[in-house]
């Protein structure tokens, strides 16, 4: 382990930055490129059983505090995974396959297929806020979540991550997921939101509703990472509004073992990974820490 490396369950990452699901994640070469640009792990777009076109444009809207998206889970369908994984793995970083589905059976099929074709981990998306029947509606039901996680974790050997969003039952969902064998928690997904253009006098997104990401959600995500760590201390991938190394360090101090990055890529490109890593290294130096591992959950210690 070097000073920037970190572990999430059985996965070792050379650094704690993870390309979040949905960002450039439909193409293996792009994932490989992200890995080469410095991401310690990369996540595919959430894959569904059937290919999905996604929504009409506009699928994206910029607001003062971040970004709204309603991509509509556009993806080539899980049968494209072999190609994607083959190319993605050439980037040299672990590849996490994100899965969006509605039933334990569907999750099972895609997870097993992903494992078979070389995925290093699967991430169950229980929290997409703007696609009906997927995601957030499941995450609101801890019992159903348990069933899904149990099914998947008992059928694959690679680590199973659970991606959660903001719901009343968040902590229970986390707890039941861990009971059911989840290896790590990914927190958080976007918040359901809307942007209206006052001159167009219409919601910008063709889907009207979208998921809010970026700086807006960072303090909410920090709170969630802190709470999950305080209660259960599982491996956590903190996601939400990481734009600078400071945001990344905040997550790690709160309890995250790794840090997901999405929106920053829209604003600054893939090179943002390198800048954030540099900042983290400087911080470790200036504060006298010898490695990332020294600061995971540090705020809970005193």
């Amino acid at each position, binding site marked *: 382990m070097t000073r920037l490396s970190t572990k999430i369950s059985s996965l070792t990452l050379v650094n704690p930055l993870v390309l979040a699901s949905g960002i450039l994640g439909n193409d293996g070469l792009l994932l490989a490129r992200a890995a080469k640009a410095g991401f310690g792990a990369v996540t595919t777009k959430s894959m569904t059983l059937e290919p999905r076109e996604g929504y009409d444009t506009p699928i*994206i809207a910029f607001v003062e505090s971040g970004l709204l998206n309603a991509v509509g889970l556009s993806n080539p369908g899980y049968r494209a995974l072999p190609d994607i994984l083959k190319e993605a793995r050439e980037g040299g970083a672990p590849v996490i396959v994100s899965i969006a589905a509605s039933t334990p059976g569907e999750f099972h099929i895609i997870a097993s297929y992903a494992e078979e074709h070389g995925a290093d981990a699967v991430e169950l998306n229980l929290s997409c806020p703007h696609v009906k029947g997927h995601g957030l509606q499941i995450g609101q039901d801890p019992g159903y979540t348990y069933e899904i996680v149990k099914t998947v974790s008992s059928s694959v050997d690679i680590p199973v991550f659970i991606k959660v969003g903001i719901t009343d039952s968040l902590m229970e969902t986390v707890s039941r997921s861990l009971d059911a064998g989840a290896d790590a928690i990914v927190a958080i997904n976007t918040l359901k939101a809307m942007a209206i253009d006052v001159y167009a006098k219409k919601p910008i997104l063709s889907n009207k509703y979208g998921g809010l990401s970026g700086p807006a959600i960072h303090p909410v995500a920090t709170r969630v990472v802190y709470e999950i760590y305080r209660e259960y201390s599982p491996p956590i991938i903190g996601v939400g509004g990481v734009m600078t190394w400071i945001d990344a360090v905040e997550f790690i101090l709160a309890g995250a073992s790794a840090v997901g990055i999405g929106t920053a890529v829209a604003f600054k490109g893939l090179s943002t990974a390198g800048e954030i890593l540099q900042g983290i290294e400087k911080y470790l130096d200036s504060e006298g820490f010898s490695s990332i591992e020294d600061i995971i959950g540090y705020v809970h210690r005193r």
Partner: protein
Amino acid sequence: MTIGMTSLRYVRGFIDEVVTHGPGLKSLVINIDKLPVTVPGQFIMLWVPGYEEIPLSPSYHANGVIRLTIRERGPTTRKIHSMDVGEPVFLRGPYGTGFDLSRRARYLLVGGGYGAAPIIFAGHVLHKKGFESMYIEGVKSREYGLYTEEAGKLGMESMLVTEDGSSGYKGLVTEYVEKNIDGYDIVLGCGPEPMLNRLIEICLEHGVECQVSMERYIKCGVGICGSCILEGTGLLVCRDGPVFNARDLLEAGYEVGVDD
């Protein structure tokens, strides 16, 4: 490259003039103050609320006036073609890379169909800089011609190439280029992909630098959704392009000459 915050919100503009060029080909001249200035080859996203937003490479942009040259193709471009002077449109951008027009060199400008849009814009900029250039436009038939006249008025050498010979040189635009490339240092191209592929080959053969503007389905425009991937290269049209240096394309694994 960091995208400026000003490029992220929609700016409303009003249509000041509608120019009908030929069948299914119109230009909108739009008054739009707050849109950051576009480099030829960069694109903007145009949104007509109620329809999709689509990428377009301006055929002119200066002093709060932008011109978009648009071919009718599907529902959104059909709607745009039905619009009138005074109606509002919403633009965000500019995004992506533009043509490199910084070098004092002899430029050969090659546009095919509505691909002539960023090419004539490049012509305007080169003309202003006093750099030498020639404008070539390839179309099916003379009624689809767009900007050879405008190029001529700028004092540039210009040539219309028609497949049916109804005007100018008869044949494919790439044939004309091949015959006339000698003496030029840089070729700028925009148009159908087979045309661009051939252009790249010709430039390779003649040892001439080549910059081409590529087209893919652009959804977000800012390099996040992955929709505009150039298959097999790991390159994004919206962020790494749309204008690529041919050499970079080939190095990344782009294959020319497969489909014409």
